[in-house]
């Protein structure tokens, strides 16, 4: 089914109310000074004019979640606190980014991560059309400006809402049922084809360049500059790393739980082993680790696409104004110099 309607904002709010009876509906909304993903009830709450500071991943991959409950010598798997399916309003780069998260959590090692899968399989995508590229976006460079993985697409504006139903699912059927009789139109979501920022991932070609990249002097510039706060990882749609910790409710209690919380490869403690030995002790080492993962290692492992989707949120977030996009460009230049056997700049 592919049918489009032009509807009023009131009608859209009616649709959200109707769907909200059975679905949890999430989208970017204002929380203090940030735009973050969470529950929404109306078009008025949905921030569609700006890019969110945080990615939608927290909707189905919570910052902290309980995995197991312990009592005495019993271990019990946590239940889902909310069994509803989730409708998620999100942009093309994020839909493409979630495919990367799926690759890691559902496919890496040949087995699915149960705690990710049970939440993820409940999520349905409602595409939020990007009217134009935002300040730090470089999705076109990463090939993640387009998608056709969504149940419905929406364009919001002062003059109302355009909606396209896109698929055969039960949810699409419900949308059709609610919208039938409204004014049909020719709306199909448009995708940005140009960003202000363009980024060229380095063409590393042969592995023999890797030791040279590892030892590039450019990484040393981050040693004192990057404060290792991990903000860039936190807002990233494709960062998936976590730590696991056990907590006990009271000093004297026998009950407790095992929790998973987002981690960050920019943190000093990320690779510290027993005995205090850290294989990436300097901030610049960790910058190299992160950058190479996003634009090289992930693709080498999974063969399809780079990890980075160019959402540009890291560049908005960094308190030290370190630009990931410029770092990638710089690296691409250094790689060309390495290939020509020249000294680095």
């Amino acid at each position, binding site marked *: 089914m592919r049918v489009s309607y032009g509807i009023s904002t009131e009608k859209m709010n009616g649709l959200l109310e109707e769907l909200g009876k059975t679905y949890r509906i999430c989208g970017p909304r204002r929380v203090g000074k940030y735009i973050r993903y969470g529950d929404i009830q109306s078009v008025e709450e949905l921030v569609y004019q700006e890019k969110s500071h945080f990615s939608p991943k927290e909707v189905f991959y919570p910052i902290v979640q309980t995995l197991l409950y312990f009592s005495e010598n019993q271990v019990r798997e946590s239940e889902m606190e909310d069994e509803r399916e989730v409708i998620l309003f999100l942009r093309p780069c994020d839909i493409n980014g979630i495919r990367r998260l799926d690759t890691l959590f559902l496919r890496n090692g040949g*087995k699915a*991560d*149960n705690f990710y899968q049970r939440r993820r399989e409940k999520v349905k995508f409602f595409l939020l059309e990007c009217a134009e590229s935002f300040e730090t976006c470089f999705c076109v460079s990463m090939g993640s400006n387009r998608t056709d993985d969504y149940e419905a697409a929406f364009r919001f504006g002062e003059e109302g809402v355009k909606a396209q139903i896109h698929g055969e699912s039960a949810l699409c059927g419900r949308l059709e049922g609610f919208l039938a009789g409204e004014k049909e139109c020719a709306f199909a979501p448009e995708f940005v084809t140009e960003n202000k920022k363009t980024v060229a991932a380095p063409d590393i070609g042969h592995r023999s360049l*890797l030791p040279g990249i590892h030892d590039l002097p450019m990484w040393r510039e981050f040693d004192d500059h990057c404060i290792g706060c991990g903000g860039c990882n936190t807002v990233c749609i494709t960062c*998936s790393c976590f730590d696991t910790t056990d907590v006990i409710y009271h000093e004297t209690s026998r009950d407790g739980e095992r929790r998973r919380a987002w*981690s960050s490869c920019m943190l000093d403690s990320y*690779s510290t082993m027993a005995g205090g030995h850290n294989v990436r002790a300097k901030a610049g080492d960790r910058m190299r*680790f992160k950058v190479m993962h996003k634009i090289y290692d992930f693709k*080498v492992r999974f063969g399809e696409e780079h990890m980075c989707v160019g959402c540009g949120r890291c560049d908005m977030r960094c308190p030290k104004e370190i630009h990931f996009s410029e770092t990638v460009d710089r690296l691409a230049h250094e790689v060309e110099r390495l290939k020509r056997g020249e000294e680095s700049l």
Partner: protein
Amino acid sequence: MKNITLPSPHKILRIVHETKAEYTFRVKCDDAVNHGQFYVLSIPKIGEAPISVSAQGEGYVEFTIRKVGKLTDGIFGMEEGDTLFMRGPYGNAFPVEDFKKKPLVVIAGGTGMAPVRSMLQYFYAHPEEAGEVYLIVGFKDRDAVLFEEDLARFREKFHTVYCLDNMEAEGFSKGFVTGYVKEVPFGTFEDYNVVIVGPPAMINFTAKECVKNGVTEDKIWVSFERKMSCSVGKCGHCRINETYVCLEGPVFNYTKAKELLD
């Protein structure tokens, strides 16, 4: 669907105090484990950590654990009959089939003995499957020596050198394992394998010393330790380049290992 990170309870059958800070725990377990694999051990409410299988037998596996932090402190507080939680076995293993009937050189530093002990015990018990075994083991000092009984038995069937970093003692010469590599008659071997396990710097120096003595890199096998949280390829901590140590390791051929640049 089976939850891949759900631990199950296992009874502690026996505890051997190897040194002040290293105990061996025998745990009831019927899994088939390959030599070099590891489990994630846990005490609910305290935490988890990856630990190599240091021996295996009918109905049990053993872990030799160094007391360094939260979880390992907790395990040291446990007694025979107590319950430990575990999940696994994880990781790849030494290619033992390829090692059979060929000279095998094992060079281990300190707790590095743990991941190779089960394989050494196997070749000790099955001499018909083993070639000549050369075992070079180094410890910091006399108090740090692990697996006294095994070391004594291994002398009977293997060519052994046991050494201590800075002192001599009965049965132990003075010096680092690297110093004894040249005594292995690599030149007389046709096909052979070398296994190196220990701290990263020890692996590095020993592999270089082997190469200096004519060993080709693809004959060398090492076992890596990296920070791990999940051990199932999800948490990210153990990754080096595109390689996940918990999935493709901990055992690597040296041709691959030397490409893994943290």
